[in-house]
């Protein structure tokens, strides 16, 4: 009798413990590189922080649920030193040695184009974020999925503002000589020409440029009152500072990427009235189909890192959300099934709408997301970044000198 009771208790214990035992998590490896060093450092680390926040939140809730399994997200990442050569080596390593089941892209169009070659060779699904150049998606890929709006959209907002406010303004295009900035500039040059706007300078500079004096003298000589261009954080912030020092007297300046970073405010007066095309701002009011709102994300990011997120961090976080959604919808971590869900996806997250092109000519290109234009404005002695366009999303009026 006592033995049978003991067996009963043991059986009950095992039965109660079974769900816990069965719920031991498997691991889902996601691989990517981060530019911990090199000129892309500032923006890349911001993107990585978005990835990290997403991973920590998912794992805190028990991981991604697929059937009766919970997958703990594990990142495998390396420093690509902002170099294409390192990206090539490291993505091969992530796939072949580290068994990364899914990939996130590095930061920047140039590095992502290199990573995409490797990911496609191995048939791995890669969510690209921090990479806007559209050409990468025109090379016949099957497993790339772009989170950002393409480069062709970046300066369209600024040009629309100029068309409305000062259609005869003389415009100087000065931009970094790299795939992303050139793609943005060339698309904008085409649009400006179609709109019969006056282009007085078109010049690219090396990304390692620190002396913008000769270029700024050319801008002044061209009698331009508008400057559109820039590249990434290091060169963009230096250009902004030197434009201020040399009193270039431009009535409107839109620079890519750099002004979106909260760090840009450290330039003080040199940052005032500079605008930036933005993939996302904390003030956006998208109603997400799943995941947090923009404000909830911003609050969580600030709590973890002590700074407000820019769009690089938001893009990183959104990449995680979108991948998670696709895995959950597919109820599988099989890459083909996840890719099929990504191809069908048309959702809204804290980042905005996400929908991928599925035709072979531009597979994975982001066709659902809209950009905004933000501007640093001095209010009561403090610099704040306001959304100024489109009108439906704005938090402040446009300031044009």
């Amino acid at each position: 009798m006592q033995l049978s009771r003991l067996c009963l208790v043991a059986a009950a214990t095992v039965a109660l413990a079974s769900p816990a035992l069965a719920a031991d998590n498997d691991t889902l490896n996601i691989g990517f590189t981060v530019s911990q060093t090199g000129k892309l450092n500032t923006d890349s680390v911001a993107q990585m922080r978005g990835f990290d926040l997403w991973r920590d939140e998912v794992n805190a809730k028990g991981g991604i649920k697929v059937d009766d399994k919970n997958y703990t997200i594990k990142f495998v990442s390396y420093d690509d030193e902002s170099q294409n050569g390192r990206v090539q080596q490291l993505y091969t390593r992530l796939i072949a040695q580290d068994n990364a089941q899914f990939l996130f892209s590095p930061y920047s169009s140039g590095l992502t184009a290199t990573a995409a070659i490797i990911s496609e060779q191995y048939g791995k699904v890669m969510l690209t974020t921090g990479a806007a150049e559209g050409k990468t998606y025109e090379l016949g890929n099957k497993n790339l999925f772009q989170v950002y709006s393409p480069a062709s959209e970046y300066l369209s907002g600024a040009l629309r503002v100029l068309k409305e406010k000062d259609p005869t303004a003389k415009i100087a295009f000065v931009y970094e000589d790299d795939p992303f900035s050139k793609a943005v500039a060339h698309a904008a040059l085409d649009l400006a020409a179609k709109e019969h706007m006056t282009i007085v300078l078109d010049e690219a500079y090396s990304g390692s440029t620190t002396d913008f004096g000769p270029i700024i003298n050319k801008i002044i000589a061209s009698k331009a009152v508008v400057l559109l261009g820039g590249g990434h954080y290091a060169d963009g912030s230096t250009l902004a500072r030197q434009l201020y020092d040399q009193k270039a007297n431009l009535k409107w300046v839109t620079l890519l990427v750099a002004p979106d970073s909260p760090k840009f405010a450290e330039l003080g007066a040199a940052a005032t009235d500079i605008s930036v095309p933005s993939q996302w701002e904390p003030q956006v009011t998208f109603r997400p189909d799943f995941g947090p709102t923009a404000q909830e994300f911003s609050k969580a990011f600030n709590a973890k890192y002590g700074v407000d997120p820019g769009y690089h961090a938001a893009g990183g976080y959104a990449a995680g959300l979108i991948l998670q959604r696709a895995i959950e919808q597919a109820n599988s971590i099989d890459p083909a099934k996840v890719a099929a869900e990504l191809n069908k996806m048309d959702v809204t997250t804290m980042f905005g709408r996400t929908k991928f092109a599925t035709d072979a000519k531009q597979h994975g290109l982001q066709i659902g997301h809209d950009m905004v234009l933000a501007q640093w404005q001095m209010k009561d002695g403090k610099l704040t970044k306001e959304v100024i366009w489109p009108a439906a999303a704005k938090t402040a009026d446009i300031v044009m000198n």
Partner: protein
Amino acid sequence: MAGLLASVVDGVLIGAVYGLAAMGLTLIWGVMNVINLSHGAIIVLGMFALYYLSSVLGLNPYAASPIVIVIGFVAGVLLYWIAVHRVIGRPHLMSLLSTFAVNMVLIGLGTALWSTSPYNVSVSLPSVSWEGYTYTGTHIMAAIIAAVIAGLLYLLLYRTRIGKAIRAVAANRAAAELSGIPTTQILALSFGLGVTLAFASGMLIATLFPFTILSGGAYQLKSFVVTVLGGLGNPGGALLGGIFLGLIEGMATPFMPVSWMPMIEFTLFVIVLIAFPRGIFSFSGT
């Protein structure tokens, strides 16, 4: 016309700083036949020295300049004894390898300490504006300081006994030794002076542009071009060569993309090597 003048003036101002950097390289070559491949890394150390004194310790960048110069001299003398003394008089490959090794060590240590993120020294001076163009106070001050340092070097080399000893060792070390000049100490002093000039140019560049631990490569290349323009072993020629290079860049940039400048520089480099192997300004030699 105002635009061309602005470009030329800017070119000459920054050219003076490049000339100062090249003076360090050419002085070392002229005295001891060593091509210092760690020249670029040393320029960057000058930048970081100013950064720490001004941004971390809060000193005014220009007031901190003498401290940077003293640090540069001490570092140069130490570097001589560690990496250069034993390869003096040996085949050139040994001194190239030795200084290249120093370069790699400095960059490796620097990357570990400071990563490759950009740094800035915050400096603000009143600027001068004319016809819509602005000549920043920092550029003007950098050129003035470069000229003053070059002038002090001239006085040292031509108006002091130590300078006479340096020129004697540069001309004929054996004869200088026989005359009672302690040539080893003079070589250490000369290397220290060369490194001091590199530190000083790094310090001035830091007041103008952001920098990283990897910034030295570009300035080292410019120093080689300027050294060839001025004549190897000719500090006075190096300063003039730097100003000349700045002048050429200033005259060219209004008419062509700025990204073509390296092509202009190195075309000039090749032409001078072929047509003026002793340098364009070799008449102003030591």
